[in-house]
């Protein structure tokens, strides 16, 4: 047995700061992206198919408007704008945060614990899980729709309205991001029932792509004050396009996205922490 040393290792360890949340995410995401690029042909193929699938929905809207001239009071260009904001926000959040969807698999395979033995946060590692450039593909039809909407929609463009467009996307990504965290927490606690959350994530994507007024009063209320998906794009878009809120909510709500997004994040992070505590207590 060697002479016990005076901890040169411990001191060396604290010379540099540990990676923070963003750094951890970037490190992990880069490794996954490079792994994915090892299979270039396969990745290109799946990019084409996911881009095609995303384009289908867009095609669907065009087909619908081949038969009628407006839906829920929205003309084609307005509908494309709304659709574009929802899809862009969703697929951007999908690019950044979908790693939480794979937690159920990780737990089943027993590979979740290896994340806990790293000197970095668990959530950023999970967010970056399975990161792949493939997820860029559906952004193309999403942003295309948005671009057409911006170009063609009869909007009285003021500086504020112009600023609202990227603002809408930002808040949209934030709201969906919080949903992905909730997905993660759910998957840790109920790994077998993970498919249930699809209705919230992909269902949410679908719902926000169309005017919320289509879904009736009760659902609108729920999406405005319950699970605040209305702030992904609906509320700010009402302002941009100059529509009145069929629900009759006060106009300051159009800008209340950050509040609801922050509240949802707070809730989601609490849920995540609880789920992690649960896992470390029961071993899942």
């Amino acid at each position, binding site marked *: 047995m060697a002479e*016990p040393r005076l*901890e040169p*290792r*411990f001191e060396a360890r604290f010379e540099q*700061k*540990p990676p923070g949340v963003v750094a*951890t995410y970037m490190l992990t995401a880069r490794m996954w992206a*490079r792994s994915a690029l090892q299979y270039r042909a396969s990745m290109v193929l799946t990019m084409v198919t996911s881009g095609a699938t995303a384009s289908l929905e867009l095609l669907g809207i065009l087909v619908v408007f081949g038969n009628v001239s407006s839906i829920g009071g929205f003309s084609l260009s307005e509908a494309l704008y709304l659709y574009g904001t929802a899809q862009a926000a969703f697929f951007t959040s999908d690019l950044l945060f979908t790693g939480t969807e794979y937690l159920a698999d990780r737990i089943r395979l027993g590979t979740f614990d290896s994340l*806990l033995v790293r000197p970095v946060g668990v959530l950023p590692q999970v967010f970056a899980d399975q990161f792949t450039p493939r997820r860029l593909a559906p952004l193309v039809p999403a942003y295309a729709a948005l671009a057409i909407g911006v170009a063609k929609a009869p909007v009285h463009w003021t500086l504020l309205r112009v600023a609202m467009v990227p603002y809408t996307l930002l808040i949209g990504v934030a709201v969906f991001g919080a949903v992905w965290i909730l997905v993660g927490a759910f998957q840790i606690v109920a790994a077998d029932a993970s498919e249930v959350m699809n209705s919230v994530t992909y269902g949410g994507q679908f719902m926000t792509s169309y005017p919320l007024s289509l879904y009736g009063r009760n659902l609108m209320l729920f999406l405005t004050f319950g699970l605040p998906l209305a702030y992904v794009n609906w509320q700010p878009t009402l302002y941009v396009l100059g529509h009145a809120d069929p629900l009759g909510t006060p106009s300051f709500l159009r800008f209340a996205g950050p509040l609801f997004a922050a509240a949802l994040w707070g809730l989601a992070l609490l849920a995540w922490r609880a789920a992690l505590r649960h896992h470390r207590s*029961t071993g899942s």
Partner: protein
Amino acid sequence: MSRVSQPTITSQPIIEAENLSKTYTLRKKAGRLKRERTTVEAVRDLNLSVAEGELLGYIGPNGAGKSTSIKMFTGILSPSAGKLHVAGLEPIRDRKQLARRIGVVFGQRTTLWWDLPLRDSFALLHRMYSVPDARFAANLKRYVDLLELEPLLDTPVRQLSLGQRMRGDLTAALLHDPAVLYLDEPTIGLDVTSKAVVREFLAELNREQGTTIVLTTHDLDDIERLCRRVVVIDHGTVAYDGELTALRARVAPDRTLVVDLAAPGPAIDVPGAKVTRVDGPRQWLAFPAEANAAALVAAIAARYELLDVSIRDADIEEVIRNLYTG
């Protein structure tokens, strides 16, 4: 709170578990609607004190609480009761700091990135563990040289053999100079040469660096060759904690005399020994470890025609089995 810890040159153990327990509540279906609650004590009043620089064998039957206790040491699982300190930290409260002081190697699962060259996994760890550049370079060189990984650095991990991957995993676990290294079945599935390489590496690591090593294995050759101290976990608690030789003496005091007769025959009848197995001309006899082996051999040779003789110490399998069932 300043994180410059107290130097461990004192007698403070690097792993200290006091009445450590982990209890699970299982809910099983009993009939259509009712759920029965059963309590499972995976770990029960486990007491363990490991000094820095020890090379410890941590063994026990499957389901005995070994992995559960290791998960608690590494901060994965929270204890239900008891006190636990590893490297001066509380594993659950200080997970991230503890992670920088420990290394973990799984025999059956790799932590390396499957599709990327070895080098890339190491580079990631450089950043993730914030190892100072000079230190990282020195460590990398040392382990790459010791484990002969130089020609493999640019090979994707999926193309490595099991032995090569294990050497990669060992390096990965050590690049940040952990104080404690946990190994779970590191030699499983390896060929004889690779096993020897790994064992020698671990012995040298412990000798030269003073890294505390906790070795969990079912390969008892590993234990024989590496560990002086053995901790046996059974039924969630420490069944034995001490030197291997003492364990062997305590539990399996019999040695085995293997005798090759000139021709097959009935079981040898000789005082002080008992035949345990016969296979053609070869017979196995058990005799007390303190007995004089030479005298026994002479006694047998006087009555039977012997071709060859060899003496075996109690097989460690037997030792452990006796301990579990005893």
